């Protein structure tokens, strides 16, 4: 096992990795920008090195500085955490070239999954279901209608060389498709000087379901079932839970089997997550994240498996050491992402924490580097705490979630705690009746922010 691990990240995830290292008796090196000198992960680390000024480009994305820090501290491995360099295949390679162990997947797996087009192709090869579509461009409306017949309506017309929604058209039947096809071509031509368009099945109310996987690079792969991350705002996850209140058991069995076989075929190493859209009993591949996920703790709560510890063990060359049949999932877990933002309009709210009281007691886990007097810097993302709740079942988990949110005090800045309190009181959320569009619809209604128990 490693003697000393350099954690090339910041915030709560850097603290999370520090904790996993210390739980294994591994020394830690924190690297930080000048803006994070007083961060809790830096202060708890056995050693720390300032690697640059606040801008991430010059610090947390500064590969030479990070490698120099590893050299001068004599670290033997580097954990990239989440974001920053965690899905940078070149970084994974250069880390190895400099004689350090990269705690994560093989560079080639990072690389293939990092490119949307290649990733979808790879997924198909691996037998992972993808969104039905016309493979390649369509020249005529007839071709489009024929393709749509196979795909099934509603369908979405998209620009091949597109992006940003330009030239996108939604067609609910053949007539509409015939009418829209020339328009789509024209718009696409105008936008991208290329009129080739293609079709994809349109999902109007999908859930975001992702499968957590662990592989040891020696052929052994297990899954830790799914996480439902459908509660999103502007494609940002807000709250995640496991198991999903909306995933059909047959679909769960099928997809976890496919996912495990796919990673066995790849010979995948470390923790990884395959994200899907789920609607009408069908799962369609979105992407694969070749790293830890922010929401990994809920899987830890129901599985009893420490995912960061597993990453460290696997990177050190250890085999998984257990089979799928050894894994027992128990209870229900929910994570609330608490951001330094106004709950009303999500305006960022950096600043000094004037008072802090974290909830505790049974079934409550807090992953956060906050403390009274800490200054939330304005340079990085606004995630400041992850409130992770465990319950024997979903109703118990929801009750405890309310209780924990009642207890949580973060003073001096605005946070999204009130949003989570209103979510916890929302009947549709309690019923598990939500898809990836639900939260934004509810926010638009102003429903979710309506007052409750005099808390606003």
């Amino acid at each position, binding site marked *: 096992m490693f003697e000393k691990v350099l954690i090339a990240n910041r915030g709560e995830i850097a603290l999370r990795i520090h904790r996993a290292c210390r739980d294994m008796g591994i020394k830690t090196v*924190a690297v*930080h920008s*000048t803006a994070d*000198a*007083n*961060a*809790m992960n*830096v*202060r*708890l*680390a*056995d050693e*720390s*090195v*300032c*690697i*640059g*000024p606040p801008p991430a480009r010059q*610090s947390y994305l500064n590969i*030479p*500085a990070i*490698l*120099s*820090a590893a*050299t*001068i*501290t004599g670290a033997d491995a580097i954990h990239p955490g989440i974001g920053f360099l965690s899905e940078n295949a070149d970084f994974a390679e250069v880390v190895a070239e*400099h004689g350090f162990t990269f705690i994560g997947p093989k560079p080639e797996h990072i690389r293939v999954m990092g490119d949307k087009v290649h990733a979808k192709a790879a997924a198909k090869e691996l037998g992972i279901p993808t969104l039905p579509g016309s493979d390649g461009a369509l020249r005529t409306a007839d071709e489009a209608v024929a393709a749509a017949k196979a795909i099934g309506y509603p369908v979405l017309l998209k620009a091949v060389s597109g992006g940003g929604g330009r030239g996108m058209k939604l067609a609910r039947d053949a007539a509409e498709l015939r009418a829209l096809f020339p328009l789509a071509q024209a718009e696409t031509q105008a936008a991208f000087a290329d009129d080739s368009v293609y079709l994809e099945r349109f999902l109007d109310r999908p859930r975001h379901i992702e499968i957590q996987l662990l592989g040891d690079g020696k052929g052994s792969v297990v899954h830790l079932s799914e996480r439902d991350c459908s509660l999103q705002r502007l494609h940002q996850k807000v709250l995640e839970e496991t198991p999903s209140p909306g995933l059909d058991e047959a679909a769960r069995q099928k997809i976890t089997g496919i996912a495990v076989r796919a990673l066995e075929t790849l010979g995948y190493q470390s923790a990884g997550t395959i994200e899907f859209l789920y609607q009408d009993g069908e799962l369609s591949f979105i992407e694969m994240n070749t790293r830890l996920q922010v929401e990994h703790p809920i899987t830890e709560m129901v599985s009893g498996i420490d995912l960061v510890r597993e990453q460290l063990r696997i990177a050190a060359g250890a085999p998984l050491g257990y089979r799928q049949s050894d894994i027992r999932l128990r209870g229900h877990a929910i994570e609330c992402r608490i951001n330094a933002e106004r709950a009303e309009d999500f305006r960022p709210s950096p600043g000094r924490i*004037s*008072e802090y009281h974290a909830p505790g007691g049974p079934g409550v886990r807090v992953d956060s580097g906050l*403390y009274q*007097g800490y200054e939330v810097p304005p340079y990085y993302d606004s995630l400041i705490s992850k409130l992770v709740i465990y319950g024997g079942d979903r109703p118990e988990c929801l009750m405890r979630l309310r209780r924990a949110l009642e207890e949580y005090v973060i*003073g*001096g800045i605005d946070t999204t705690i009130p949003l989570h309190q209103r979510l916890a009181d929302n009947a549709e959320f309690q019923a598990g009746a939500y898809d990836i569009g639900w939260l934004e619809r509810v926010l638009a209604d102003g429903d979710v922010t309506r007052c409750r*128990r*005099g*808390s*606003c």
Partner: protein
Amino acid sequence: MKFGGSRPRLAPDPDLIRSLAKLLDETGLSEIEYEAGGQRIHVARHVTAPAAPVASATPPDAEKPAIAPAGTNGATHPAANGHDDPGTLKAPLVGIAYLAAEPGQPPYVRVGDAVAEGQTLLIIEAMKVMNQIRAPRAGRVTRVYVGDSEPVEYGSALMLIE
């Protein structure tokens, strides 16, 4: 005794201080003090004579964090390797500092030396690359904070040139 609930306001905010300052004007008071369990704010204005510059002396380890977890020590803010003197030369990158071109050779500069702008003062090795650190302006080396072959982090003080 309490029944039911509502959430209290959070101090400290500059607006509060500004509004209290306005109240001083308005009321002709010279001090206002306000206390609310655990929190207290006190502003004063003693009139006559122009305001002298602030004498806010920062203790040596001012940037050390208030909380030190058991069994560990606080991280030192680079600026706290301190010496915020304008003449302080700070490390532009992380690496190993070398005060001489070769082991055993005399150092580029010694305390007391006069240096010209652009003159090489030391080298910082990062990823096998030797980075020459040059004098930003002419002056005299009055302190050398770093030892030969010592690791330096971004922003740590290297020398003082006056």
